[in-house]
């Protein structure tokens, strides 16, 4: 069980980080700006953006472009 968990984290840690960390930050930012907070389902889009960035980082093997 522990091995499966460790293996999952090794493979998907960037996606989880994107989803939870980046998604939470994007969500918080969106609530600070009225032109963003009026967008329907902005919370969902914030976390979706976080997952998307995490997936790109997982595919590339690293976070930044370069």
């Amino acid at each position, binding site marked *: 069980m522990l091995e499966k968990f460790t293996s999952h*984290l090794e493979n998907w840690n960037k996606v989880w*980080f994107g989803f*939870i*960390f980046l998604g*939470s*930050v994007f969500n*918080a930012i969106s609530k600070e700006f009225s032109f963003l907070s009026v967008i329907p389902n902005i919370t969902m889009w914030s976390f979706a953006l976080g997952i998307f960035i995490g997936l790109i980082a997982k595919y590339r093997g*690293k*976070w930044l472009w*370069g």
Partner: protein
Amino acid sequence: MVVGIKQDIPSEFSFEKEKTIAKSFSNRFQWEMVLIGIGQACIWLSVWPLVFNQIIPLWIGFIVATLCSCMAYLPSHEAQHGNYSRGKPERRWIDSLVGHFTLITLMYPYEVLRVTHMKHHAYTNDSEKDPDFGTSNPKSLWEVTLRVLDGSSLDYGKYLEVYADDNAFVDAMNRGTIVYLLYRSILLSLVIFFPFEALFLWWLPSKIGIVYTTIFFSWYPHQGTTLGRYKDTRFWRHWMPRYINHSMQLHVIHHLHPSIGHYSEPKAVEALKPFLIARGVPGAEQIPDRVSYNPLVKF
């Protein structure tokens, strides 16, 4: 015979004499480093209630947290070398306490840093065995910064394979992984409820601290160096006074004699300068006669 020691230098600069001089700088208890390590972590912890209670604004908290993270590595580094306990078993708890606690701001596990750093000393600049090779050998400041930020400088999986037969190394890495997961769990829990605080008081400061530490501890001292005890680290000078980059211009003496305490390094370099020149240490000819209270600035 010690590996990497030239045999054709004058006897007045023998390794035995060098070691005797170095040992004289290796006895002092480094209370300043304990104070800095524990102090910056305590200051960082106190920033959180100050920000939450709006006693200080978040941007001031960010600046303080970043300064703390830039001060975090060196006290842990002394602990990694056992320089607080100095071989006394009854004092090893100081190494552990400072080593672990000071790294809270960097969000980094002490055990991982300790064992990889020991391998770095044993195999400095070895492309296969030196865990710091990815950060000490990029060709530019921009490249090393990018590697640290995008996570490609860390390849602990590779070194777990390289040192698979070293049980102590593997065990320490596994213990460190648990601490790493704990840090991550706390961060990801915090960010859900306090996103801006998690970002500006912990994650971003730790990133800046790691970039700063890597540039000055790993990259600058090993730029353009090769393999070998007296060739793998250099003396260097910079436009920045050494007080702002933890005197890493003197890192060469640490690689030669890791037991020399950080604040004893200037005097140790002054005393060992003739030895370093005789051994052909890169940059040794640039060492001034007075290193103590010398910012070592060069434009």
